[in-house]
């Protein structure tokens, strides 16, 4: 039984078809890395799963919640699948703790004390319990991204989408964010991540999806995809010369 079912998904921006029939099934607990050149449609695919983009054809469902373009269905979907962005997107007018508390209180109507306890737990989990009262602009990029992860986790999603979450970070901050993601993967969280961190994809992911020109070009376990890429496009992308 798959957790995320992506079936024949097509997406157009005007005349430009960026997704040309995508089929991916993700099982619970799987960690999927989506790789590919920029413009291959990998970010768009991730954004579709969270309903940030509408789809033109096909269907997407996460644990039974269908992607449909009305607020009620979108909310149901987004409660099941959280998203983390390249640019962190923390709410700058709220402290780290408040950032993690807000959606629990507003969307789930969790009482404040409970939401605060949850926020402290989640910040602890990403190693930032001591930053509860810090504002986002007092935190480093890596810390901000970890708060963003805690914020998504506080909604208790069953899957997490990560859209190039380390691409905006200074090199020395990348590892602290990846360590958190690795831990989540270890705990059995279902993850789907667009990433350029090939080593991380190889070490942590259960499957790798290589996208090329709006299609899933190759898919398989990392040892297979990285060690023996079948198509010339993937060989070129990985910089392997045969």
């Amino acid at each position, binding site marked *: 039984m798959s957790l995320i079912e992506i079936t024949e998904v097509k997406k157009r921006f005007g005349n430009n078809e960026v997704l040309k029939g995508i089929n991916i099934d993700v099982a619970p607990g799987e960690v999927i890395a989506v790789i590919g050149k920029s413009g291959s449609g990998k970010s768009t695919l991730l954004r579709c799963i*969270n*309903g*940030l983009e509408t789809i033109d054809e096909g269907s997407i469902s996460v644990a039974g919640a269908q992607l449909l373009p009305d*607020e009620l269905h*979108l*909310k149901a979907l*987004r*409660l099941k699948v*959280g*998203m983390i*962005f390249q*640019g*962190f*997107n*923390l*709410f*700058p*007018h709220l402290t780290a703790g408040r950032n993690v508390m*807000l*959606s629990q209180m*507003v*969307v*789930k109507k969790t009482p404040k004390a409970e939401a605060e306890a949850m926020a402290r737990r989640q910040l602890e989990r990403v190693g930032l319990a001591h930053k509860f009262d810090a*504002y986002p*602009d*007092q935190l480093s990029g890596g810390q901000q991204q970890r708060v*963003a992860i805690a*914020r*998504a986790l506080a*909604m208790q999603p069953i899957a997490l989408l990560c859209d190039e979450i380390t691409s905006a970070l200074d090199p020395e901050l990348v590892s602290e964010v990846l360590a958190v993601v690795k831990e989540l993967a270890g705990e059995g969280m279902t993850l789907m991540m667009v990433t350029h961190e090939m080593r991380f994809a190889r070490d942590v992911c259960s499957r790798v999806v290589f996208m090329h020109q709006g299609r899933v070009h190759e898919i398989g376990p990392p040892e297979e995809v990285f060690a023996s890429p079948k198509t010339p496009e993937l060989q070129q992308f990985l910089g392997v010369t045969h």
Partner: protein
Amino acid sequence: MSEFTTWDIVRNLLLAARWTILLSIVSFIGGGLVGAALLFARIGKRRLGQIFVKTYVELFQGTPLLMQLFLAFFGLGLFGIDVPAWLAAGLALILWSAAFLTEIWRGCVEAIARGQWEASSSLGMGYIQQMRHVILPQALRIAVPPTVGFSVQVVKGTALTSIIGFVELSKAGTVVTNATFEPFKVYGLVALIYFCLCWPLSKSSQILERKLNVAHRNH
């Protein structure tokens, strides 16, 4: 012929300045309320509301305030409604302020990065929740300096209402000049009073801007 002391002139001008202040406050607050209502129609999802507000703003920004005052004063008269000058002045200034404030505030809402909408969406928030908890608190902060700055325009705008016969500071200046035959002295004093009203507003707008910016950089 009776003689007027400077104090007589100043006293009369200050008495009239009360009406300038009152009209400014009414226009600014009324314009703010109407402007807020228009803002929600403008940034809302209904197409009709957007077009209505857009047209409204273009009309009021594209015609002189003086014409708007004339139309409010004489236009309503055409329908047999006897409009007192204070009502026409208040009405025109409220509608005029609303047009500008809506536009200022729309800019502030649109200045909030798209990522804020996306992040709050992905957390399951609906449109109204996003507005209330994420977008408006940030937009409000950047809206304060330009809004206070615009209040200066409102104060100066009230001067035009003298033409339809509303007795405020400028009109009082004309009346006093007609009695004293000292236009330079009288209008100089009028200008000075306007300056005393406007300068603190401009200054506080600047101070607020600096303060809120600093707050944003490092709370």
